[in-house]
């Protein structure tokens, strides 16, 4: 043995040991990066779908935002969840139309603040009660969307994604 040098076999063992130590870290790093990417992608998909849905809702003619049976709004919720292709699989896993909220909003008389539009009476947004169209439309996921992160040997808390879009009513 030359002084100051390990034998080849010993160096190989050291490299193996280093690899064994570094591999779990690298795997965690990759898995973590993938999960972050999936969270980002999911949020992006939800936000994009809500934006498209809110914009569609904001240019509807005669939709009753206070009616749970409004066919136009039901179609938009279906669009947000399933996309434009008529798929039966939601764009985002476990998302359902019941979770999607399309809310009317009204600016107050002083144009100082925006609040939820009432559903009763002529001042509200219910067409059936003599109301009229809202000033803004908000689309969001009721209670947020729970995204479960998958990391080996760990069970982290689900991440709650709360995408929300507010669009002005009218235009198109």
């Amino acid at each position, binding site marked *: 043995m030359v002084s100051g040098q390990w034998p080849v076999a010993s160096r190989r063992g050291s490299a193996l040991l280093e690899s064994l130590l570094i591999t779990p870290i*690298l795997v965690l*790093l*990759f898995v973590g*990066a*993938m999960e*972050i*990417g999936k969270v*980002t*992608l999911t*949020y*992006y998909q939800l*936000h*994009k779908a809500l*934006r498209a849905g809110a914009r569609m809702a904001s*240019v509807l*003619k*005669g939709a009753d935002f206070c009616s749970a049976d409004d066919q136009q709004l039901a179609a938009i919720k279906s669009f947000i969840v399933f996309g434009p292709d008529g798929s039966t699989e939601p764009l985002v896993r476990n998302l359902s139309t019941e979770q999607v909220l399309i*809310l009317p*909003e009204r*600016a107050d*008389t*002083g*144009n*100082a*603040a*925006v*609040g939820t539009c009432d559903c009763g*009476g*002529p*001042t*509200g947004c219910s*067409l059936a*009660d*003599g*109301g*009229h*169209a809202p000033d*803004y439309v*908000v689309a*969001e996921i009721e209670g947020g969307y729970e995204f479960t992160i998958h990391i080996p040997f760990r069970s982290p808390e689900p991440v709650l*994604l*709360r*995408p*929300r*879009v*507010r*669009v*002005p009513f*009218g*235009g*198109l």
Partner: protein
Amino acid sequence: MLIAVLLVFVLFGFLGFAVDLGRLYMIRGELNVAAEQMALVAAQELVATNAAGDNAQTAIDLLQSEGNDNRFNFGGNVLGGDGPLVSEIGDLEFFSTFGDATGTGASGGTTSGPSEARYVRVTIRADAPLTFWRFLPIQGIGGVTSVQTTALAGISAPVCTACGIEPLAVSPVDFADTTDFGWVRGIKYTFYSQCTGAPAPPLLANTADRLQYTLLNRSIDNSTLDTDQQLFQLSAGGIPAPPFPVPDETNLACPTIGGADLRLPQVSVAACTQPARGAVATDLLCGLNARLNPVPNPGCTNITDIDTLIQAFPPDTDIEQIDDYTEYAGNRRRIFTVAVVDAIPFAVGTAMNVLGFRQFLLEPDPDSTELTPNGQWGRFTAMYIGYPAPVKQGSFGTCGVTQGPGKVVLH
């Protein structure tokens, strides 16, 4: 060992591409959505007045008022707020032509004043956090980087079908004038409910000419409100979009150029020598009056529950007498859009052909801040302003008009 160290940097670089770049695009998408909505609300305020710029900024502030405002970074950060991620909503840029707005015109992106503006551009810049790239030994890359996006909105070409307009029809002075139909911008007109024979009703103070109007046939058959209440709503807030008045008559809700329309049967058509015009004219003026005064006029007693109904229609924020339209600083409630038809019919069933849409600015009575709903001939004063304001909703078609109000669109 050297290779391993290099590989770590390469690895972080790739992770940066995978994670940080994705997040940057995601944040940019959020900013873009926010910018688009801001541009849309700002463009609605482009009505060719000096106050349009301030009103556009106010509209953006209202859109972004706390609560359900459009945010960024997974919806966690308020736009325009301080904190670890600084964001900034840039000054609005106004343009008078599409070429200027897109920077493709001969004048190459020249901005305009608010009173000439037909397009508005919103720019948002925000800090975006970096997860992996911050560890790379590249100068200038820290914990955050700047992301910027812009959105452009403006007023479209003229619409062929206009929704949300007021239920009024007037006939042109000059059919050959396709720009203004013979009316003069800035001139105040005495509007009066249709009548027959001479002499025409006398002019109101400060008006130079008169304009005969009738009401479009709009009523909600299945409404819980009576006719007076409905007419009040129609004139106070405009014609609601379909399915109004009833689902199988959706075309009636939004008049279309080239289409036929009918006048309201209840309009009292009598000789012009008889000034009394009955409840319909009073209901109309009560609704128009709500655009000026939040308190019901004493002359509007025939509208049941007017105290409640009027709350849905906030008044204009500028109810001053206006002699120069560009000085108007209100919230557009005084601007009303009428259908221009070929003739005001005497008979109920006679069709009116829609030629276009034009806009007027409602004026309060002289020395007053409101109208006189139970006055004679159903008269009120309005200034002709052309077609500066976008309609609430509308659609294009093959009507072929080149002049008229458009609607707000994103570009």
